[in-house]
């Protein structure tokens, strides 16, 4: 049996508290709504035909909404099968804040964006940076610390990470 990139990605995250949901674009509504702990903020996804405005998600939050949000929804990719990591790129849209301030980060990822290795992802990033990208983070699981005497999730960033893999994208 050959392992698909999606399987490999999922296996790499086996030891981390990350919930992975696979879905076809048509079934996204149900999957996405299951992930949201309101209030939710988000930034527009780069996928045709999917608009977060159709969901109970605040797209351009006020300062107060940003601080109060429990869930932040962003896109991600490329993702790295060997580590279960996802690259989250930020442009002019507040992706960093949306992915860091709320307790839960929901990442929407196209299955075709999963690459085998970290080196593959870095070479994609290298091109994007050459083309003007100024900020990206390779995230693997939730924010973590061991500085308070034991491992704890949710240090300065999200305590929970949900990944939605769009199987037909």
């Amino acid at each position: 049996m050959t392992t698909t990139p999606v399987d490999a990605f999922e296996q790499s995250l086996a030891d981390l508290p990350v919930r992975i949901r696979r879905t076809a674009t048509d079934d996204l509504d149900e999957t996405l709504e299951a992930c949201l702990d309101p209030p939710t903020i988000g930034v527009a996804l780069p996928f045709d035909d999917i608009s977060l405005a159709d969901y109970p998600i605040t797209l351009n939050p006020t300062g107060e909404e940003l601080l109060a949000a429990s869930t932040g929804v962003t896109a991600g990719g490329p993702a790295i099968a060997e580590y279960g990591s996802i690259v989250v790129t930020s442009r002019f849209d507040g992706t960093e804040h949306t992915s860091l301030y709320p307790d839960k980060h929901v990442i929407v990822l196209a299955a075709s964006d999963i690459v085998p290795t970290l080196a593959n992802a870095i070479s994609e990033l290298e091109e994007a940076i050459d083309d003007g990208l100024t900020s990206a983070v390779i995230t693997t699981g939730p924010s973590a610390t061991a500085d308070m005497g034991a491992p704890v999730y949710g240090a300065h960033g999200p305590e929970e990470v949900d990944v939605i893999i769009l199987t037909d994208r």
Partner: protein
Amino acid sequence: MTDQPNQLTRREKTAKIRHLLETEGETVHETVTPFNEGRYRRYAEMDDLEEYRAEARRIQKDAIDRLPELIEQVRDTVTENGGSVYLAEDAADARRHVTEIAESKGAERVVKAKSMTTEEIELNDALEAADLDVWETDLAEFVLQIAEEEPSHIASPAIHKSREEIAALFNAHFDLDEPLQTPEELTSFAREYLLDRITTADIGVSGANFIAADTGTLALITNEGNARKCLVTPDTHVAVAGVEKLIPTIADLPPFLNLIGPAGAGQDITAYVSLFRPPVDSPVADFSEPNEPAFDVGNSDRSFHLVLVDNGRMAMREDEALRETLYCIRCGACANSCANFQQVGGHAFGGETYSGGIATGWEAGVHGEESAAEFNDLCTGCSRCVDACPVNIDIPWINTVVRDRINHGADTSAFDHLVDGLTPDDEPTGIDRSKRLFGNFETLAKWGSRTAPLSNTIADVSVLRSALDRVAGVERERELPRFQRETFRAWFEARDAVEPSDTVREAVLYPDVYTNHVQVDRGKAAVRVLEALDVDVTVPDVPSSGRAPLSQGMIDTASSHARGVHAALAPDIGDGRDVVVIEPSDLAMFQGEYERLLPGDAHEPLAENSYELLEYVFGLLENGAETSALCGPDDRIAARGDIGTEIAYHSHCQQRTLGLEGHTVAVLERAGYDVVTSDVECCGMAGSFGYKSEYYDLSMAVGDVLREQFTEPETEDRTVVASGTSCLDQLDSLLERPSRHPIQVLDPGR
């Protein structure tokens, strides 16, 4: 800058180490050991580990070779991106520059991500003196800021703080009505407290793990996510980084990112690796009008300042011995893998800023040799960090060279009557007496055998012991080596040799100074085993390897030993004789340090033709020798001694670094023994280290871990064997039952 404290006296050192063992030792040990075990586990899983390490080292070497060029390149790329670059000559220059940036912005509050380089330049003090409100956001740094303490580890700065201590600290400092208790409560309190500071900060200050010169891209590695939060929330980002953080391109990042999580704590990869090409496009979040959109989307008015810190680094680059220090990626693995560090942490095993094995290089380079002199002796040269370091830095060698320099810089006006007669070395007279005494062990041993048993009686006279302690720092509690009147070589020459009937190999059995004068029985056993396996054995007169002086930082003396050994063994090797070595630390010299101590390729023949004793026996068995020639457990009824079928084996630190532990285990198992091994990094004795009075407590604390492993129900009845002399000495003081070299178990003549 703080003033250099005067060097501690031996008594003050003893007291300081004892105090840290009592106050911080336990927490340090509990925190660091899992990091170390994690690294072993993860390294073992990584198929490409050695490729990554070699590649990472190649990139670092290339980057440091081309450093001036990379500095110019990053100046251009960062300026083109819209940021500024400043090359700060020293700490004061860097502090002044950052303070000026803050003042020109009219800033009031600064939030910081973890940066050891800002610790090195003592940036916080300078910013606070300029009336800025400064907050560390890395949770460990935050704890230290509240506690007003110094980092105790370069990667995890608060390893000496337990949860209970942190809870007590927070509850008292913040005067909380509902006391915090659990790690979750502490974390969430700190998160909220710091969030208020981050959202109202004017400047975010970070370090950088790597800076790709090609695009001016910074890589920042965290688990908490605080770096990104600090840097994208305020509109001004100041990154303070040593010049050595430059790498040529983004494409050079993968090996480092693949290694740093595993090396540091056994993580596959850290939770966050941020790449910034600042100033970034992200909108500045505005919390001042809570009901207005937080982001002025599409409009990012940000500034970025890169402060590259020299502070001695360009001089380190010109210094053959310190140069490799600049390859360090500050993962902390050398600290985690160090048996001494595991017991005392960075407050003893560290200088002004840096701690652990590599700290000697950093401190000597950025703060000066005096700072390194405080703790440099805590590196015993056990070499366990060498396999741990993701960029293959020869950390023990850096420690040795700095020790040698400290020796040479020592006060040469002191005249050492007592030690001089016994120490015919090539070193300056001002060098520490204890170092000279231990460094000249060979002379001492010759005298000891010549005058035995008188020399041993002297060793028992308590007035003499207390004089030896006072003058040369030899711990009274330690039993001194028992010199044998008949040396191993004398026995070998006097005996009636039986020529092996069918010689399969010819070998020199190297008569190291311990085997020759003290552990004579293991030499005899080695001869009997080798001859039983049809090896033609000779035991020529060869000087000691130079390990003893080298470990005291006496490089010139060690070099002259190396030349002597080379001259004595070269003809035998030329005649096709193998060199079999009993003492692992001597083999490590032949295969390691001799490359540095002998000219050109002179070290090669010995390196290639020398074998650890049990490695050699293993090779003979592999090539058809009969296991039945060895004494197995079934022969034990006839055999003398109390050796059982079940063995507890403690290998030797340098033997493990050479990858030779397994051979001993395999030979014992083939001979029919059941073997369990210890998994401590070091027994704690480490040559002469445990004999020194100021380190005795630490040595015993390290040894205690081994004692526990060998007194558990599973191991308490097992026969104890160990490969190294100093390990055997240490085991003698740790355990009530005797210990011996594995060859004595296998000895058909026992």
